[in-house]
């Protein structure tokens, strides 16, 4: 570590300040590419690293923990300066994280946490999924402003922690608004087609949709499916039925820009930005970041520049 620091110092003297981290190598063990968001996270991380002059070694684990452990051991053997880990599961990391610690390599967890003593990693950069639900609920509360409003909810996959959190956050946010009631809540499995199918049945069960004032979907894909169902029922999505969802995928920005949806809470794919910032401070003078860095849950509404967001995101692999 001392050698590294002196090397760094000499580098800092020789180079302009902006290219400070030019010699750093970071290993990134990614879960895989099971969703569009995951693919976007990968491409944002790569772009971020390039911009900061960090050499990124990327390992795709194809949803297997043993691949991630192998990749981390490989990174340790190569003597990288830091490891980014998006853990596929929460348990079973103690040993390999201990090895990284023994080798003095800081590990930053991305987007998910692990069940391990927190001295085994530098920090965790994640979104607060309960907070995402709260942001959505707060938006609806403000938009309705005391008017009675019957909400239907499209939940994610039953039992998934994201589903539980986003449901809880929304329920908490509207708890003090007696005018807003959740009248139906069903799972749409986070998919477009189930979102559409379940919304169809909501519409029929609630007087052709006339009794529904708003839809809260745990992700954008289900909301996008539901928008089609609402249109086919002869109603105007975004007007007759207000829609708020979570994720901010490019297609949702497009839908909001076209007035077919009202709001989406961003789950940012840029987990690497805060991670690299924390790492650079740590490399520079050993500054310890907090154990949890919460990413921002930005709310996009029809007043936001959704076309710009769409252009920015459309090639990220969503």
């Amino acid at each position, binding site marked *: 570590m001392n050698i590294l620091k002196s090397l760094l110092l000499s580098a800092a003297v020789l180079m302009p300040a902006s290219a400070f981290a030019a010699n750093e190598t970071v290993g990134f063990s990614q879960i895989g*590419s099971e969703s*569009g968001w995951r693919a976007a996270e990968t491409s944002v991380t790569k772009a971020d690293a390039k911009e900061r002059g960090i050499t990124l070694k990327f390992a795709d684990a194809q949803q297997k923990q043993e691949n991630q452990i192998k990749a981390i051991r490989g990174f340790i053997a190569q003597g990288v300066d830091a490891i980014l880990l998006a853990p596929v599961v929460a348990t079973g990391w103690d040993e390999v994280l201990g090895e990284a610690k023994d080798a003095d390599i800081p590990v930053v967890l991305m987007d998910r946490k692990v069940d391990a003593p927190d001295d085994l990693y530098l920090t965790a950069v994640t979104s607060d999924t309960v907070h995402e639900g709260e942001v959505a609920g707060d938006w609806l509360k403000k938009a309705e402003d005391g008017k009675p409003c019957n909400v239907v909810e499209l939940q994610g996959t039953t039992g998934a922690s994201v589903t539980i959190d986003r449901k809880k956050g929304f329920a908490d946010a509207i708890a003090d608004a007696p005018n807003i009631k959740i009248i139906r809540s069903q799972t749409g499995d986070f*998919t477009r087609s189930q979102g559409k199918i*379940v919304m169809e049945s909501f519409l029929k*069960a609630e007087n052709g949709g006339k009794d529904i004032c708003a839809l809260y979907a745990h992700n954008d894909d289900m909301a996008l499916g539901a928008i089609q169902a609402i249109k*086919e029922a002869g109603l105007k999505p975004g007007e007759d039925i207000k829609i708020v969802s979570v994720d901010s995928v490019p297609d949702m920005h497009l839908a909001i820009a076209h007035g077919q949806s009202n709001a989406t809470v961003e789950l940012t794919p840029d987990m690497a930005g805060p991670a690299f910032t924390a790492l650079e401070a740590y490399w520079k003078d050993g500054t310890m970041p907090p154990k949890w860095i919460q990413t921002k849950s930005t709310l996009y509404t029809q007043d936001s520049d959704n076309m710009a967001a769409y252009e920015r995101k459309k090639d990220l692999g*969503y």
Partner: protein
Amino acid sequence: MIRATIRRILPQLVILALVLGLNFAMFPGFFHLEMHNGRLFGNIIDVLNRGAPVALLSVGMTLVIATRGIDLSVGAVMAITGAVAASVVTEGGSWIMALLAALGAGALCGIWNGFLVAVLRIQPIVATLVLMVAGRGIAQLLTKGAILTFNDPGLIRLGGGTILSVPTPIWIWVTLAVVVGLVVRRTALGLLIEATGINERSARLAGINAKVLLIAVYLVTGLCAALAGIVVTGDIRGADANNAGLWMELDAILAVVIGGNSLLGGRFSITASLLGALIIQSVNSAILLSGMPVEFNLVIKAIIIIAILVIQSPRVKHSIYLLRASSGPVLARRAVAAKGAVGEDHP
């Protein structure tokens, strides 16, 4: 002939009526139909429309199961064919080209399965497992892991449009079922399939080209899966390689089983399988309409399906038969007694 058919599908008809009745009990507007933007709109239309993918798959699956085989890959083939269709239209092709390309891809997948089963003699469950696992990967390669969206009106119409106010998927599965049904029942083909399923060796000795027949059957299943893939892709205007047709092979097998077809091959009824598909969709509809917490979804579905299968088991059927035979005269006596004393409570 018609009476025999009705007797064959009577249990399925009764069960379907019961499940639809359950829907009606929970939601009195269930059979209500109205027109919205030139489109028939109502829960019963939803059952027919949303049941389309499983209905399409169950047609092919019935034939495969009749040969004592099984096809686990149909869900993955749906993902592949959906991805192919979406790729063609996003590259500027017409919807007809997309349809043909998707059918071609489905046919290829079917021939591959048929080759493994008929020529390499691999057990069907293992042979089709290969494509079930690998197929979704192929589909993801085609869509590059993202949901490939499109705006081609022709392709959208196949999944989400209407013809004469009736959703297109309903037309597709009804047409397919009629065509396949006529082909296998108006020719000797159905008999040959059944013969192969009961005893392949004796079928071959009797002069049936079992190899070609098996490949053809898997080919038809691939084509059915292709149509199902197009329907779900057109419906959401995008190819979702991760989720299109996910676990749908199990629903298709279940439809065939609810249809009273034996997994050991032999005699089969496509009509009964289609009723099975509609029963499954009606159960799904009942769960959605019930408004119960989502944690109960699978429990309710399991209970209903276990009940259906128990009622159909040969043992239970036989007991019911015995019960009816033995209580026949009692019923007659009761009827006479009831005539004598109306309103009196008979044990």
